[in-house]
């Protein structure tokens, strides 16, 4: 392997979270962005070609080494890793509304979901998937919520743009234009 790829591999092994191109660039100040991308590509191909137990994945605006899916059951059953707890349907629905409508107030979320979301919202905040991003103008200046990079990591996507586009959803009839639906992405 190219020395730059080795250095990147060492860095990925030292970090518990995805590393962005900016962070990788700090690691090798003499290398260009293109060289770093090429080295990442080399590492990815190496893992794929030589039959490794890990792979280089692109998530949350960065790169991260992850174990291959095929080994998940064996590792979890041997109690080496505990799988994260699954989110409840109310939590997922609340996340969906926030992801597409952010920044969004609690009242708006409750309006769309038709239920109170106070405790769901709090537990999503505790899990770091949602955060307060500001305040609305107007009466009472309610807090506004948005999603975090942790949500991207949870979903294994790089950016919010990778979420399904609303016009791709199977719901046949879109809401009237003035109603807006979940809002534009």
């Amino acid at each position: 392997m190219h020395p730059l790829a080795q250095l990147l591999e060492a860095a990925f092994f030292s970090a518990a979270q995805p590393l962005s191109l900016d962070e990788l660039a700090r690691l090798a100040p003499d290398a260009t962005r293109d060289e770093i991308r090429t080295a990442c590509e080399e590492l990815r191909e190496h893992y794929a070609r030589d039959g490794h137990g890990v792979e280089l994945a692109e998530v949350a605006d960065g790169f991260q080494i992850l174990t291959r899916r095929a080994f998940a059951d064996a590792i979890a059953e041997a109690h080496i890793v505990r799988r994260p707890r699954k989110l409840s349907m109310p939590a997922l629905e609340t996340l969906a509304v926030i992801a597409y409508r952010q920044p969004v107030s609690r009242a708006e979320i409750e309006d769309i979901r038709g239920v109170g979301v106070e405790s769901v919202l709090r537990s999503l905040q505790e899990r770091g998937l949602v955060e307060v991003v500001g305040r609305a103008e107007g009466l009472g200046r309610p807090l506004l919520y948005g999603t975090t990079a942790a949500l991207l990591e949870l979903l294994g996507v790089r950016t919010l743009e990778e979420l399904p586009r609303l016009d791709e959803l199977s719901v046949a009839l879109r809401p009237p234009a003035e109603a807006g639906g979940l809002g534009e992405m």
Partner: protein
Amino acid sequence: MTVWPTSTSTDAPFVVRLDAFSGPLDLLLHLIREQEIDIADIPIATVADQFLDAIDVLGLNEAADYLEMAAQLLRIKIQMLLPQPFDDDEWEDPRAELVRRLLEYEQVCEVAGWFAQQSSEHADRFPRGWLPELPEQPPPPVTVTLDELLTAVEQLLAVMPEAVLHRVVPRPLDVEAATRRISALLEERERIGFWDVVGESPTIADVLSMLIAILELARLGRLRVTQRKPFGKVGIKRAPARATA
């Protein structure tokens, strides 16, 4: 999306798990789908009745969110019974707003389902679990978010007597004595401060006993607690209407 509960027979279409629905819109959508109703032309009278039956069977007829939906359905049902004007163009379907909400909510469900699938697939790829120690280096920058600060404020405000009780209280709380002490002080003076009643160098048990006593007396209307600004001094006042004891 909710795993739709399966009916055991056509006579009992509402045999479902209690937590099967994530809200009234979810339940309503379930009824509509189960009967393959056209969402743009909902037979409101039928669906409203089914909705009421369902929340009754599900024990949800005390949940405010479901009751609100039931009320809305009944309102639409009545509006539908009113005679329609001749000019169709001017007639606004009373179901329109409900249909809009249902469609919007269907989108939410579809995205939530995608989230569930995506996160469960991704959860099978594990990140690095162990991080090696690195050589000494200057301390990293710090970060603090509004969220974290708020959590800290809440934690402070919540005080959490239970947590403290388990940890440090060396002797049981004495709310009764605290109550007596407050009452006695209020006999002497109309207004006292929190730290007056706690006294010199109080233990945590003293503070908690006093706190509980104050809240209880406030609840019973025997005193009033005032605070002019966040974290401000807490004042305790004799309740004006209190019968002299």
